[in-house]
């Protein structure tokens, strides 16, 4: 195992025991994510992309295979606070201000008051929400709330950012804007990002590595190393390279028989 492997999965499987019998959510997932990668997981509902992300976060425990995060088990990595997690919904506490929400992980992790304040200011600036620290979540738009939740995940400086369809509920214009900002943020912070989506353009635009998944049972259908440069203006989406990658993703999705049934 090389030093650079942030995430290494070998034969990872997860079978849920339900009252209707076992459900195989994931089978034989092999994946290697290197430091600084931006990895997208794409596939139809039920392909196990969110489940795999939750395995990385040790919110689920695989029933087969081996999984290491930062060279340790996923559970140990969770306890070491190795990652920040951004959920589908912003999930900000309505009784805390934006600043208070970002401070939440810092309070839990025992940062000093001065350091909390300094970090809150820093990440608010990072997600372009400077000056909104004293507002309550309901005073912000959906896109701003989601940015605040990203700031919350960044506040404690974990090297890994796990994002579960963070922009899924937002409209396309806001989404484009946030994608652009996310790339800028990734460039500035050098984090390793795992990003779940079901939008092909979003996956291709953001990622250095695209993991195409297919359902029943959830498995990896294709892993595409993106040939696109790391710096990507929005109009890169009209370039032939972009279209070629998008095409391959679509083929991968189709090959997984994801739309047959």
């Amino acid at each position, binding site marked *: 195992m090389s030093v650079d492997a942030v995430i290494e999965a070998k034969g990872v499987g997860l079978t849920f025991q339900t009252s209707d019998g076992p459900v195989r959510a994931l089978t034989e997932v092999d994946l290697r994510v290197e430091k600084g990668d931006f990895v997208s997981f794409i596939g139809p509902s039920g392909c196990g992309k969110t489940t795999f992300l939750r395995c990385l976060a040790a919110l689920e425990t695989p029933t087969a295979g081996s999984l290491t995060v930062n060279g340790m088990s996923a559970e140990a990595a*969770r306890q070491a*606070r190795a990652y920040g997690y951004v959920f589908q919904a912003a*999930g900000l506490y309505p009784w805390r201000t934006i600043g208070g929400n970002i401070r939440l992980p810092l309070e839990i992790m025992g940062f000093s008051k001065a350091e909390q304040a300094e970090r809150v200011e820093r990440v608010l600036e990072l997600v372009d929400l400077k000056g909104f620290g004293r507002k309550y979540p309901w005073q912000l738009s959906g896109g701003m709330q989601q940015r605040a939740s990203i700031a919350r995940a960044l506040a404690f400086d974990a090297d890994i950012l796990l994002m579960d369809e963070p922009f899924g509920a937002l409209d396309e214009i806001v989404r484009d804007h946030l994608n652009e900002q996310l790339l800028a943020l990734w460039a500035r912070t050098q984090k390793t990002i795992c990003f779940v989506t079901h939008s092909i353009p979003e996956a291709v635009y953001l990622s250095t590595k695209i993991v195409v998944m297919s359902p029943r049972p959830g498995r990896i259908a294709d892993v595409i190393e993106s040939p696109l440069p790391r710096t990507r203006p929005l109009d890169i989406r009209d370039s032939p390279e972009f279209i070629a990658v998008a095409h391959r993703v679509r083929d991968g999705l189709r090959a997984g028989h994801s739309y047959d049934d």
Partner: protein
Amino acid sequence: MKRVAPVLVVVGCILALWYVMAVVMNTQWERDQAGRAGVSVGWAQIVPATMRQERPVLPAPHQVVAELWQLTWVEETEGRRGLVNSGSLSNRGLLIHAWVTVSATMLGFAMGAGFGIFLAVGIVYNRAMDASVMPWAIASQTIPIVAIAPMIIVVLNSVGVAGLLPKAIIAAYLSFFPVVVGMVKGLRSPDAMQLDLLRTYNASAGQGLWKLRFPASMPYFFASLKVGIAASLVGTIVAELPLGGAGLGTRLLAGSYYGQTIQIWATLIVAAILAAGLVGAVGFVQVRVLGRMGMRA
């Protein structure tokens, strides 16, 4: 004015109905009196007479108000044992009884709310308590309080506990239940995502309780406190029924022994005012607390 007008209309309707019912219910006595005296009376004599009986079946509102005034303001300012002449509240007036009842209610409410929160936290965090406590809590509330209150008081008295505490225990007995139910619901109100979020921070159970579950439960908490404080007042009054001394419950029982219907009604009105005041006080705190938490209550 827009907020006051509907309230006044409702109060007016209740008063009108009350007067009508007073006439209807007190007429028989007037007729019996007239029959015994051998005179015949018409409605013109009966209706005014029903308004000023000494022991009416249903006293008219103005009689109750006059009694209330007499037993509070007049008694304290002019009575020999009143506040002005003796320096302490008169034991013939209603204020001392109201005060005794309120203090037992508050003590019982504090005990009940505290116990309720304790049980709710236990139910949410402890599997054994989750499985076992709720049926007992429900069973405790199915026992008629009138049946169990005198027994608790007698038992406590025999071990030397008297005064405020036995009454407060009855009040707590009634008020812990809504707090348990509301707080269990409130502590469980955070969704799976918010709990997962704390897991990703590797937060301890205590941090989860203080930073997520308690704040999230506040709206439920205050709703249950409002029910709880009213139940606490009822508990205290019921507990006072078999007791001598002071208290609205004692006063109610005395009134019914001697057929003092006007006095009973005056006492009931005081109890109602107290209940409204207590619930209002909880509401006041609720608006302040939730307001400071950025919520619109």
